[in-house]
């Protein structure tokens, strides 16, 4: 079934929309949740929450590419769920590893709790990413948005793992310089 047909089911309030979403995107969403949570039960709950959020948001939304739309929902819900866990349940996941890598992009010793406007920050990061060579851009997004492990990224591109790590390192350094120039740091 095409995306627009599934979206039409949501708009018609036809519950078949959920079934089709599950069939077409269930595995994809589960993987996103898993990369954050590294826990089967939590990941399944996160995916179910994604379906509910999709049902609540269409209408009024009418996304062109459902995969991307649902992926954003699943990712954010999973991160929110992770933060709600108590420390005992938090396990090393690709999300936790990615945060430790992104430490390089913020100033050392910065412990300010001030609010950051995420949309402004996103616009700035988008400008930075747009200026990169496509390989550097997609590798960065794979690692820090999709939370893919380095070995999977290497496989997607036909690169060695060391090349992926070098690309990520240089991109993080570039991002830090960019954020400094734009007064985010």
């Amino acid at each position, binding site marked *: 079934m095409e995306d627009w047909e599934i979206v039409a089911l949501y708009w018609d309030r036809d519950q078949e929309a959920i079934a089709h979403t599950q069939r077409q995107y269930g595995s994809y969403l589960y993987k996103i949740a898993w990369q954050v949570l590294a826990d089967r039960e939590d990941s399944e709950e996160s995916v179910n929450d994604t379906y509910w959020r999709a049902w609540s948001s269409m209408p009024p939304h009418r996304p062109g590419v459902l995969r991307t739309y649902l992926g954003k929902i699943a990712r954010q819900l999973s991160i929110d769920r992770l933060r709600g866990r108590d420390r005992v349940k938090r396990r090393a996941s690709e999300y936790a590893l990615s945060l430790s890598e992104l*430490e390089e992009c*913020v100033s050392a010793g910065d412990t300010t709790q001030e609010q950051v406007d995420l*949309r402004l920050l996103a616009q700035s990061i988008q400008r930075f990413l747009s200026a990169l060579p496509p390989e550097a851009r997609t590798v960065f997004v794979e690692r*820090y948005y999709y939370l893919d492990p380095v070995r999977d990224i290497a496989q997607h591109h036909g690169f060695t793992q060391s090349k992926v790590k070098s690309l990520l390192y*240089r991109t993080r350094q570039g991002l830090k310089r960019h954020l400094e120039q734009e007064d985010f740091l």
Partner: protein
Amino acid sequence: MRPEHISDSLNHLSDEILEETDRVRSGRRPKKRVLWTAAACLCVMIAGALLLRPGGDTVQPGGELPLLEISMESGGMGFEGLLYYEFSELENGNPWHEGMELEALPVFRNGAYSEVGEPIGLSAKELEQRAESAARALGIEDFTIEQERGSYVASSITRVRLTGEGVRIDAEADGCVTVWFDDELALPEEYRFEYSDITSQEAEAVLDYLIGQYAKLLNFQQPQKAIFRDRNIYGELGVDYQVYNAAGDDVEDILNYAFRQADFAPDGEGKLMLIRLYDGLACAEQMGDYPLISLEEAREALLAGQYVTTVPYDFPGEAKVYGGELVYRGSAREQVFIPYYRFYVDLSHEFPNWDDTELKNFGAYYVPAIQHQYLKPGWQWDGSFN
């Protein structure tokens, strides 16, 4: 700021960036780098592209050729351009030169992609034939073949994959064939094969070697090297190793350069990782031969504001214009392939805060090379319309 802020903000990235990455993750072929000016550019890889929709209804001056419509989509991902310390550093192996006596060039309708950019042109049988032909050229006899369907057009076979004897060959429905080596192949010690930090002489030498080694696979009667070089934001001079068949007349050479190149890619450690064979006209239908304007006429048109570009800044004037060459634009989203004169404009004044103030930023501007009475009115476009 904390790392969580960066991670959370990525949820607000544009869909175009996410979809570009998702295509790579899903194994769908990324866009051909050379047609979007290289992997190492501040302004590379526009998410949208120049779309041409053939007008079929309006009578045109010649009475036979359809009027062409140009429109531009942009995903706000930046603009097309190149980085150099001096424009004279540009190398791309374009066979076109002003001395060619060309009065007309063909325009093609592109049938290779679905509306969502998925390759759909060739049949499963044709894909298998292409994959098997490549395997035979490499001396591979023991292999298996599997077919892959599209994510969006599930009824179509978008790729055939052949695996065997340490090699994987992907034949895609847009005509592209990629040969991957399971264990990247080491070259003889005397050859350096790198993405950057390599002289033009070294690059030519290794490309000559590879052309010889894979002559059967390329099947070019007269292989012509077309090494492309440009700089990245760190000032490093990169290289793309490209070759096309120059056995035809001037028109064939231009088309082969634009649509039927072969690329050799290193793995970052001096070994051969893959060979990619493009055939961008495999699913194209010729619409006709359109009469051309001269380079000088194109330059006048450029200065008069008659151009298309993804550059979002004011045109800075004649003194900043460099180059002028005839090219075809053949990216995935183009519905029609037409020739253009491409000029580069120095936009460095728009980036005063660059770390490397000597590195210049050249934006690409295109003037249709066909006579403009064959274009529907209102075709001019620049990136400020994003």
